[in-house]
């Protein structure tokens, strides 16, 4: 015979789930009670026409070490509602069952908030007077073991609800006692409910203190107060702040610019509120990923929270909010470009990586931000604007190693070489070259390097030709070609340059020195694949006395020796780690020289 059975819920197990898996800390019971109180008042504002908004309030009375009473003057509950909403887990008074959605006026909607109190007590007492049945006060007593009672009460309370929680739960480490302290409760209210729309008071004996504030997120009007708020809640002396106001009403708040650089992988701590109730510190879902230099205090009424109420669901609205925040940050930059260029320089120099990533993504901010980007160059650090105004030819290289090798020569010649070897800089310098009118910004090619080094006065000289012939033969085994040139400073006898592929080839050779048979073939394959595109030159500076001596040296054997030593010396001065054969060559040749 078929029979219907009902699930039984182990309340102890549920509380364990809440405290160990759903909520990050027992602290959240304060948030849940504030939320219930706020929603009860909102409900009364909607349905009780005789209730003026200025009367609305939430009071939290703390009897030190003993109990906490949360009191609101919202709708209150009648008996039917008590059975329905306080005693059935998962049923919320704020949930519109017919329409299967939560009402937009309320913060909560899961019907599990009151349970969170069992994280700090084994006993909850709810006294309530419904505005619909104002002659009756009802008292609901719930135990952590899942039992509850309801009876009429003589308690003299106004329309609304008071929730009494007793300090009777044993905790392993004694931390529950900390919740029965007025200062600690006040701190939690401050943390969760700073922007709640109804006044929240703590009462400790005779002392009654208002904790929350009515705040206008308008940095134009309240700049100083906004900066103080940022310092207080986010703990930083920020560079600047600006208003975040969604054009579609999705959010409202303040964005703060960090005063120091941060890595793109650091998820900054924000203060994000849902319907004026604190939701999360984690803003990486709400802010564009490139905005890691920004921290926010932000309130939203329309984004959906997860059931733990500690994060947002990822949906289209969240994506839209993220795009809108990106646009507002872009507008802020535009405004600074017009009105406060100094601050924009400062922000871009501190947060260069973030700004570069914005430009690399190719949006409309490019032209605005490019002049502010700072590049390392042979003339020191220059901004994009400095480069645009330079007025002559500027070369850039995307190979950091090449920059390091060539920069000394450009410094001597007072010519501009830009290091575009860092993340995003290739895209940025390309863009800068495209918008440049006065300066001809060109990527450095082997021909440019060759051109920058002057022709040697020894070109065509038979002795110099002989040196080149011998050097070509010697350097062939290193896949390197010798070239005679004149350049400053005179003290540098040689200059070794390689392209990115040749740099990779060196790395492969380095690994091949140690590879076993299984990997040797693989490394050979990689090496062969790039062999055709590797380029390495050893420039011999005929202004240098050593090279001049070599030209006049008629001992071929000695010449070979010197050339190999100079080659290794050039590698060392270019900070290239030596391969085994190169180190060996250095030692062998020094030994040979000593034998002469």
């Amino acid at each position, binding site marked *: 015979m078929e029979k219907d059975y009902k699930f039984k819920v182990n309340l102890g197990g549920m509380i364990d789930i809440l405290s160990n898996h759903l909520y990050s800390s027992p602290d959240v019971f304060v948030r849940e009670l504030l939320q219930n109180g706020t929603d009860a008042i909102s409900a009364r504002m909607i349905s009780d026409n005789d209730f003026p908004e200025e009367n609305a309030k939430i009071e939290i009375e703390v009897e030190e070490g003993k109990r906490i009473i949360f009191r609101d003057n919202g709708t209150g509950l009648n008996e039917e509602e008590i059975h329905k909403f306080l005693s059935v887990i998962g049923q919320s008074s704020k949930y519109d069952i017919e329409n299967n959605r939560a009402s937009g006026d309320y913060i909560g909607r899961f019907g599990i908030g009151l349970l969170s109190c069992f994280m700090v007590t084994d006993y909850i007492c709810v006294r309530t007077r419904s505005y619909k049945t104002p002659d009756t006060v009802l008292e609901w007593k719930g135990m952590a073991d899942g039992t509850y009672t309801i009876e009429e009460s003589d308690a003299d309370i106004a329309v609304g609800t008071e929730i009494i929680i007793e300090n009777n739960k044993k905790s392993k480490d004694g931390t529950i006692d900390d919740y029965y302290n007025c200062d600690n409760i006040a701190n939690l209210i401050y943390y969760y409910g700073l922007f709640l729309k109804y006044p929240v008071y703590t009462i400790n004996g005779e002392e009654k203190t208002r904790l929350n504030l009515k705040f206008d997120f308008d940095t134009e009007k309240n700049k100083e107060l906004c900066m103080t708020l940022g310092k207080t809640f986010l703990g930083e002396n920020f560079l600047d702040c600006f208003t975040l106001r969604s054009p579609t009403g999705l959010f409202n708040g303040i964005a703060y610019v960090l005063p120091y650089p941060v890595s793109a992988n650091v998820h900054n701590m924000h203060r994000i509120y849902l319907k004026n109730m604190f939701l999360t510190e984690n803003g990486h879902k709400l802010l564009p990923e490139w905005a890691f230099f920004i921290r926010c205090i932000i309130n939203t009424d329309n984004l959906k929270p997860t059931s733990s109420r500690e994060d947002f669901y990822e949906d289209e609205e969240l994506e839209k909010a993220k795009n809108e925040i990106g646009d507002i940050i872009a507008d802020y930059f535009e405004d600074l470009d017009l009105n406060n260029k100094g601050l924009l320089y400062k922000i871009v120099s501190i947060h260069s990586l973030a700004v570069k990533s914005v430009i690399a993504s190719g949006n409309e901010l490019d032209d605005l931000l490019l002049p502010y980007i700072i590049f390392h160059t042979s003339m020191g650090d220059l901004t994009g604007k400095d480069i645009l105004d330079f007025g002559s030819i500027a070369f850039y290289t995307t190979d950091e190693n090449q920059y390091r090798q060539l920069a000394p020569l450009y410094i001597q010649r007072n010519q501009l070489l830009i290091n575009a070897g860092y993340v995003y800089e290739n*895209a940025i310098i390309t863009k800068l070259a495209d918008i440049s009118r006065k300066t001809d910004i060109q990527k450095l090619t082997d021909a440019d390097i060759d051109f920058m080094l002057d022709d040697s006065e020894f070109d065509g000289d038979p002795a110099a030709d002989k040196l080149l012939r011998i050097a070509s033969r010697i350097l062939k085994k290193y896949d390197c070609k010798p070239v005679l040139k004149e350049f400053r400073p005179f003290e540098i006898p040689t200059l070794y340059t390689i392209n990115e592929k040749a740099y990779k080839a060196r790395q492969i050779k380095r690994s091949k020195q140690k590879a076993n048979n299984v990997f040797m073939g693989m490394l050979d394959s990689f090496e062969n694949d790039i062999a055709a595109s590797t380029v390495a030159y050893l420039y011999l500076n005929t202004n240098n006395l050593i090279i001049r001596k070599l030209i006049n040296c008629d001992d071929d054997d000695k010449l070979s020796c010197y050339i190999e030593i100079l080659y290794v010396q050039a590698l060392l001065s270019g900070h290239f780690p030596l391969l085994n054969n190169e180190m060996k060559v250095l030692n062998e040749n020094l030994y040979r020289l000593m034998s002469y």
Partner: protein
Amino acid sequence: MNYEEYKDSFFEGLDHGEPKCKGIRNAIDKAMELQDYENVLTLYGVFIEEDTFYCDGFQSVIIFPEYQSVFEQHPEFHEKNKYTLMWSFKWIAGSAEDFYQVTFEQLENMYRQYGEYCDRFKYNKRSYYRKIWNFMDTYAIKNFSLCSSCEEAHKLMMHCQLDELSEPAAGEADDLTSYYLFVEKKVQKALKAADRIFSGKLSCTVVPHYTYANFADYYFNHNDIVTAADYAVKSLRIINRDFGTDKSMMKYKGMIISVLAFYDLPTALKFFRRQLNICYTNECGLEMFYFYRGAYHLFLNLERTEQKTARLIFPFKEDPLYKKSNVYSVSKLREFFYNKTKYIADRFDERDNNHHFNYLLNKKYDFGDAAALS
């Protein structure tokens, strides 16, 4: 110096990817100079993990023989470092197969050696067979000396217990999902296997990123562009969040672009523009095949909307197509990215002796009214 000191001095706080890899490489050189081989071995492992997850894996494949050599020269550190070495080996094996430069025979030898190392260090063959079926599936390999079929390798894998070299729970679930999707082609089983991933119970560095993208790819290839786009958007959000500024994940970024190119062109274009300048230096053939194929699909569909030109910061400055104006003919871009993809497809198909990549490139997609081209 202890490990923490190397970290603080050379790579702590550097951004993921190339900056951090350079820092770790300098730390390895320093430890070598100090003959501090215990830390050399640890740092090699750190380097390979960083390069595998945040770059294109090329440097890892290059550096691993050095690591292996130092490891073999120092048996006193085997017990302590064997776990890191084996994970590194596992990662680089996964990377090496994705470079068409590596021949089929070299891959066979590498996998054989990986299996021998599993035996030598008393690990079971679960991770070995995982690599085998994954490789055979990704490259549509039919004749492989190490195993008769993808299904057989998977079966042998499932016969081995989980051990220290097994993927974490999220990776295992993602693997199973892929197997059901792409080998058995049973989407309901795959959805069930992915249940704990999609409900948020299982996750890791790359899951659910991979999982969403794989479902997107599956539905894309089974003519359901609406469902494919739904999964693609989910994958895009988290990939953007966690790997948006890295040149890794290009295979999945490419899959997303392919799907959205047929469904939501503006989003596909925006995502592509951003990634192109980050990733064009990625040298991994497999990754770039999917990324360039995504670009080809993008400009193919843009062309169908009769848009003639597109603005793009084009990083291939040496290519004749490059223009200072940043304005390009859509059809030229379509042709450019087709050719780039085709080059890679030919190289892989030559290596693997099949037509798998050319098939993937030239497959015609037609989603009819479902494709909302705008």
